[in-house]
C-alpha cells in the first residue's frame, strides 16, 4: 500500500519506537539515511542502522535484528522483491519502503498494511488489483459436474480463467520488462524534513547530492531530473542567510573532481569528454591538446593543480569549455549544479561528492559505508573521510579510463547483435569493483566505441563466479534498462544457475563456466 500523508502515516508512527534502518550501498541511500538520521536524532528515536548490499544480506540483517523491532525502514532496497515472502516477518512488523528501484513488486503495492511504500511514483503503470490477483476457486474443479448445463458453465469458467491468465501474464511482462529508477529517495526525505519544519542546509545538501548522482550516471531522463530538482530549488530559495555553509545552484563544469585535480587530468578522465575525443587512440593525446589550445589554456597551466591555476583562466573556464565543446562536437560540458559554499573555503561540488561516496563504498573495502556517511556531512570544511574519498575517486576514474581505453584499443568490445560486451581480464583489481564503477567503465567503453553503440554488458570474473553488469544504451530520453528481465529469461532458457542477489536487477552473478552459454542465450533472446 502507498502512504498518503508522509508525516502522519509514516514519521509520526515511528515516534517513540525502536526503528531498524536498512540502507543500500548507493549515493541516494546514503543521503536519505543522513537525512533520516538527523530527523531521528532530533526526535530521540533510537535506531539500528545496518547497511545491506543484496537480498541475502537483507535477509540476514533482518533476522539478526528483528527482536523487539516493530518498524523497519528500508532505504533503496526491498521495493522490487516480495518482502513478506522473503523475510517471513511476524504479523505486527511494519515495513516502510523508500526505494527508487523500479518497478515495485506488485505484492508490496497491494499489501494490506504490512508493507507500506512511502512514495508513489506517478510514472509507474502499476496493473490494477483485479487484473493480477484473483480468488482461487479451483477447489471444486476435480469433481466434474454431471448435468449438461453445469458442464457448459464449467467450461465457460475455465475459458475465462485462461483468458484472464494470459492477460495477466501480458500485463506482468509489460510491467516488469524494464528496470529503471524512480524519483530519488532523498528528495522524498527532504520533503519529509520540510513537512516537519526541520529543513536545513545539511538536508538540502544531501538532497542535492542524490539528484547529482542520478545526473552523473544518466539514470533519470532530463525531463524527470528537472522535476526531481524542482522541489529542491524551492528549498534552496528558502534558505535562511547563515554564516555557516550554504548551498547554491550555479553553472559549473560537468567534469568530475576538477577542483581537486589538474584541468588536464579532469578532462582526460572525464566520462563525458574522454570517450568522445577517443583518447584511447594514438591521436587522442593530440585531440586533447587541441581542445586545450582552443580553450586558450597553456599546457603548463592545465597540468598544475586547478586551485593554483591563473585566476583569469579559472574565471573564463566555463565560457571556454562551452565554446570548445561546440567546436569539437562534444556534449555540453557545463550544467547547472549544486555547490556547497562556506566562508574562506573552496566550494564543494555535489558531483564530486557523488564520486567520492561511490569510491568509498565500492573501492575502499570494509568500513567504506561509515566513511561515506561522514563525507556527506556539512558540519566541517575539512573532513578526513572526504579527502580520502576524493583521492580514491580520482584513482578510480583514472583506472576506469585505463580499463575502457585498453578494452577499446585491444578491440575487446564484442558486438553481439543488440548489445556489446567485454570481459575484464581475470585477476585485475577492477574485478573486485562494485557494480556502480563497472557501469561507469561500461558506459565509457560504449561511448568510446562510437555511434550506434547500444547497451553494454561488462563481465568481471571473481574466482569461480562472474559478475555481469549491464547498462542501457546511452539515449538521453529513455533511461530504462532491459537487462534485468532479459537476464532472468536467458537464465531460465539456458538453465544457468544465476544468482539475482542485487537490488539492481541488471547486475547478476553466475558461475564462470556457464558464462558462454548464458551470453548465447542472451543474444538469441534480445536479437
Amino acid at each position, binding site marked *: 500500500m502507498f502512504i498518503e500523508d508522509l508525516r502522519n502515516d509514516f514519521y509520526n508512527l515511528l515516534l517513540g519506537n525502536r526503528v531498524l534502518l536498512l540502507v543500500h550501498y548507493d549515493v541516494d541511500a546514503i543521503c536519505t539515511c543522513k537525512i533520516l538520521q538527523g530527523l531521528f536524532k532530533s526526535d530521540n528515536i533510537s*535506531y539500528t542502522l*545496518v*547497511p545491506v548490499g543484496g537480498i541475502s544480506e537483507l535477509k540476514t540483517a533482518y533476522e539478526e*535484528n528483528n527482536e523487539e523491532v516493530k518498524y523497519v525502514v528500508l532505504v533503496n532496497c526491498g521495493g522490487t522483491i516480495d518482502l513478506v515472502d522473503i523475510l517471513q516477518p511476524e504479523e505486527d512488523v511494519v515495513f516502510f519502503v523508500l526505494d527508487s528501484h523500479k518497478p515495485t513488486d506488485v505484492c508490496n503495492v497491494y499489501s494490506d498494511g504490512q508493507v507500506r511504500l512511502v512514495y508513489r511514483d506517478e510514472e509507474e503503470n502499476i496493473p490494477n488489483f483485479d487484473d493480477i490477483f484473483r480468488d482461487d476457486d479451483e477447489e471444486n474443479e476435480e469433481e466434474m459436474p454431471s448435468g449438461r448445463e453445469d458442464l457448459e458453465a464449467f467450461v465457460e469458467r475455465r475459458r475465462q480463467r485462461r483468458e484472464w491468465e494470459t492477460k495477466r501474464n501480458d500485463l506482468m511482462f509489460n510491467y516488469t520488462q524494464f528496470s529503471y529508477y524512480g524519483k530519488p529517495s532523498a528528495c522524498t526525505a527532504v520533503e519529509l524534513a520540510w513537512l516537519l519544519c526541520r529543513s536545513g542546509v545539511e538536508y538540502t545538501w544531501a538532497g542535492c547530492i542524490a539528484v547529482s548522482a542520478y545526473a552523473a550516471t544518466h539514470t533519470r531522463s532530463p525531463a524527470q531530473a528537472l522535476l526531481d530538482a524542482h522541489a529542491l530549488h524551492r528549498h534552496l530559495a528558502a534558505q535562511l542567510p547563515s554564516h555557516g555553509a550554504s548551498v547554491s545552484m550555479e553553472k559549473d563544469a560537468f567534469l568530475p573532481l576538477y577542483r581537486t585535480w589538474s584541468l588536464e587530468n579532469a578532462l582526460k578522465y572525464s566520462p563525458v569528454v574522454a570517450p568522445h575525443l577517443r583518447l584511447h587512440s594514438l591521436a587522442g593525446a593530440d585531440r586533447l591538446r587541441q581542445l586545450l589550445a582552443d580553450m586558450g589554456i597553456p599546457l603548463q597551466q592545465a597540468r598544475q593543480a586547478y586551485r593554483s591555476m591563473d585566476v583569469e583562466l579559472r574565471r573564463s573556464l566555463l565560457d571556454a569549455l562551452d565554446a570548445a565543446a561546440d567546436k569539437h562536437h562534444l556534449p555540453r560540458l557545463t550544467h547547472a549544479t549544486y555547490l556547497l559554499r562556506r566562508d574562506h573555503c573552496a566550494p564543494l561540488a555535489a558531483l564530486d561528492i557523488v564520486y567520492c561516496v561511490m569510491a568509498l563504498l565500492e573501492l575502499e573495502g570494509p568500513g567504506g559505508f561509515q566513511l561515506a556517511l561522514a563525507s556527506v556531512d556539512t558540519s566541517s570544511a575539512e573532513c578526513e573521510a572526504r579527502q580520502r574519498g576524493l583521492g580514491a575517486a580520482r584513482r578510480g576514474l583514472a583506472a576506469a579510463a585505463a580499463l575502457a581505453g585498453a578494452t577499446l584499443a585491444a578491440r575487446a568490445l564484442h558486438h553481439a547483435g543488440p548489445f556489446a560486451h567485454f570481459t575484464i581480464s581475470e585477476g585485475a583489481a577492477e574485478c573486485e569493483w562494485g557494480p556502480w564503477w563497472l557501469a561507469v567503465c561500461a558506459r565509457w567503453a560504449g561511448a568510446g566505441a562510437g555511434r550506434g553503440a547500444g547497451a553494454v554488458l561488462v563481465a568481471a570474473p571473481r574466482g569461480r563466479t562472474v559478475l555481469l553488469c549491464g547498462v542501457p544504451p546511452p539515449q538521453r530520453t529513455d533511461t530504462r534498462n532491459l537487462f534485468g528481465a532479459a537476464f532472468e529469461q536467458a537464465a531460465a532458457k539456458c538453465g544457468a544457475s544465476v544468482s539475482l542477489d542485487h537490488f539492481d536487477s541488471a547486475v547478476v552473478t553466475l558461475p564462470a563456466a556457464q558464462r558462454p552459454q548464458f551470453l548465447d542465450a542472451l543474444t538469441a533472446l534480445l536479437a
Partner: protein
Amino acid sequence: MFAEKVIELIKEVDRNPDTIDQYNDEKIRQIIEEMHLLFKLNMNDANATTENRSLWTTVQVRHSALERNKRCILAYLYNRMKKIKTLRWEFGAVLPPDIRELLSDDEYQWFSKYSGNLALYMRSLGQDIGYSGIDLTENLKPPKSLFIEVLCVVDYGKLELEDGDVVMLKKNSRHYLPTSECQTLIRQGILKQIM
C-alpha cells in the same frame, strides 16, 4: 572578650567556603560561656543601679556584644546546615564515616530528618503517571543528549537495554542508543561514539 572568639569562628568558615569543617565544639562552648557571663554582668548592673544612669552605656555595649555573638553563631550554624544539605545530594542517604565525624549530634539528627523527608518526597513523585518515584539526585546536570550515536567495532552479540529491548551488536552496524547504556561498552572498546 566582646565577640572576638566568634569572629574567629566566622573566619574559619570563610576560609573554606566549599568544604565542611569539624564542628567546632570547643569554641562554641567558649562563646556561649562568654554570652552567659555578659548576661550575668548585665543583670547585675541593671538590677543594682536602677537610678544610676551612668552604667547604662556599659549595659548597652555588653548587650550589643551579646547580640552579635548570637547572630554570628546562628550564621555559623545556618551555613553549616546549607552545606549538610548539599552533602545529602552528593553522597546520598548514607554518609561516609569520615564526613559523619565532622558533624555534631544535632546536625546529624537534622541530616537524617532531611534525608527522610527528601526520600519521602521522591517516592511520591510521578505516581500519577505510573512511576513509583523518581530519583532526583541521579542526574543533577541535564545530559547534553539522552541518546548518542555509536558504531559497533566488534561482534558483541545481544545487548538487553533497561527497557527490555534487545539490540544486536554486530560489527559495522550503527546504533542510536541511550547514553547511559553505552558508556560501559564504549569504555570496553566495543562501541565507538560517532561525533
